[in-house]
């Protein structure tokens, strides 16, 4: 039982990170129906920004986190404006291929600047272990829970209560009706990329701290898994991304702990195939009839 709870905590830590990344996928999909394949790489850039801020500028955890979020957000907005916006009326496959192109650009750009080697992420947090009745929780895990929790509350507040958040929801459900309200659709899309990318940046820094290492290809696998998480929860649905992320994190951890860590990834991708067959709309997705 103790190990189960222990694995649960580990799974939730990993799942929090997937959830943060999945939110960006889901919000962007919700508003422009694009699977932004460059999203995992924004997370990677976020990790490198955090790394640089701590190493070269001597920042502490929170300033580095905020800087990484801000720069990732800007990167996301820039990508949208330069690469996706000119394709607003193009076919979806054209935009999708562009997203894959952007993903390669970011990976190779970072390979060029930072090299292919794995770098040790500076440990700005003392890795204290708290132990309650045999269950261990590290300071970093607590920081992951705390940060994720606060960011999600903040996101819910922005999306539900603020004017820009409401505009986001309006554009997601009906862009032309939103225009009739005087909402600037382009700005709203930029805002969505801003929010989603900032969360990915935060996830990058948290992962750097949690696993100690970063490299330019680190966004690929978590990016895919977060995408699976978004689909599992119901793509386009914000709470779905949160649930999906946590679920995938827990499943992956449990498979490693009780099964075989070699098949961990296969299980996650197997889940994707299963959802697509059994319930393509995801856990929270409603089976919506096409509007007439």
């Amino acid at each position, binding site marked *: 039982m103790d190990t189960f709870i222990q694995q649960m905590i580990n799974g939730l830590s990993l799942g929090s990170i997937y959830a943060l990344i999945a939110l960006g996928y889901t919000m962007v999909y919700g508003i422009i129906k694009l699977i932004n394949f460059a999203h995992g790489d924004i997370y990677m850039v976020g990790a490198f920004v955090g790394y640089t801020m701590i190493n070269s500028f001597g920042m502490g955890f929170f300033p580095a986190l905020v800087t990484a979020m801000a720069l990732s957000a800007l990167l996301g907005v820039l990508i949208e404006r330069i690469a996706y916006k000119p394709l607003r009326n193009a076919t979806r496959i054209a935009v999708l291929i562009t997203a894959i192109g952007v993903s390669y650009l970011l990976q190779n750009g970072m390979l060029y600047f930072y090299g292919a080697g794995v770098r040790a992420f500076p440990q700005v947090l003392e890795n204290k272990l708290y132990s309650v009745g045999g269950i261990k929780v590290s300071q970093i895990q607590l920081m992951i829970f705390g940060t994720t929790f606060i960011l999600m509350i903040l996101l819910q507040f922005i999306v539900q209560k603020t*004017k820009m958040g*409401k*505009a986001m*929801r*309006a554009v997601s*459900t*009906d862009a*032309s*009706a*939103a*225009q*009739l*309200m*005087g*909402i*600037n659709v382009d700005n709203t899309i930029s805002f969505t990329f801003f929010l989603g990318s900032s969360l990915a940046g935060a996830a990058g820094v948290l992962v750097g701290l949690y696993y100690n290492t970063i490299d330019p290809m680190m966004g690929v696998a978590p990016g895919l898994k977060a995408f699976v998480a978004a689909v599992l929860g119901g793509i386009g649905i914000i709470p779905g991304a949160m649930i999906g992320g946590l679920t995938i994190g827990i499943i992956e951890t449990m498979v490693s702990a009780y099964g075989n860590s070699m098949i961990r990834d296969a299980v996650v991708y197997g889940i994707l195939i299963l959802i697509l067959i059994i319930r393509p709309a995801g856990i929270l997705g409603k089976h919506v009839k096409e*509007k007439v």
Partner: protein
Amino acid sequence: MLEVKDLSVHYGVIEAIRNVSFEVNEGEIVSLIGANGAGKSTILKAISGLHQPSNGEIVYEGTAITKETPKKIVEKGISQVPEGRHIFSGMTVMENLEMGAFLRKDKAEVQNDLNNIFARFPILKERMKQDAATLSGGEQQMVAMGRALMSRPRLLLLDEPSMGLAPILIKEIFHIIEEINQTGTTVLLIEQNAKMALKIANRGYVLETGNVVQTGTGKELLESDVIQKAYLGG
């Protein structure tokens, strides 16, 4: 107030309307009548800036708004209730109404207008917190109209407000349109329900496959051959 001159609109190579001209004077209800595919919605999309015309001009209060963004056009006081209502599903009735006031900064006045809309559509007040998508068709039409009114338009564009509604509700909706007009809002009404639309209209235009084929006062058109034959089975 609104002058549409020689307006042509294309969707790709398809010409939806050709050289359509008409005008709406301040305080009027003007009805635009036409069969399916005549190009009625296209005209409203062009006025609201959702679709750029290929030719012609749209003049509002003396200035051309042909190339303005939808946002600018709402700011200038033109608001549209689109065909099929297009309410925001997943958002509450209240949030839908709030979206109508998206560009407004005068909070107190917005609250005032909200109260007026609730007075006009009491059912919406009851359903305030409900997901707008769960409302009945008639109630959704009220949300769409209330939402458009929340921008405090001087010119209200209505695209087939009676579509899919029971006769008794249609009567009520048309009555409300008249009331809205009496409080000083000019109305451009698009309808297939020619009888009702022309009854409340000061003037009307009949559109056929992209062209205006007849115009006159509401009463004249009601009695005209074109309308009698095509719409009233006379």
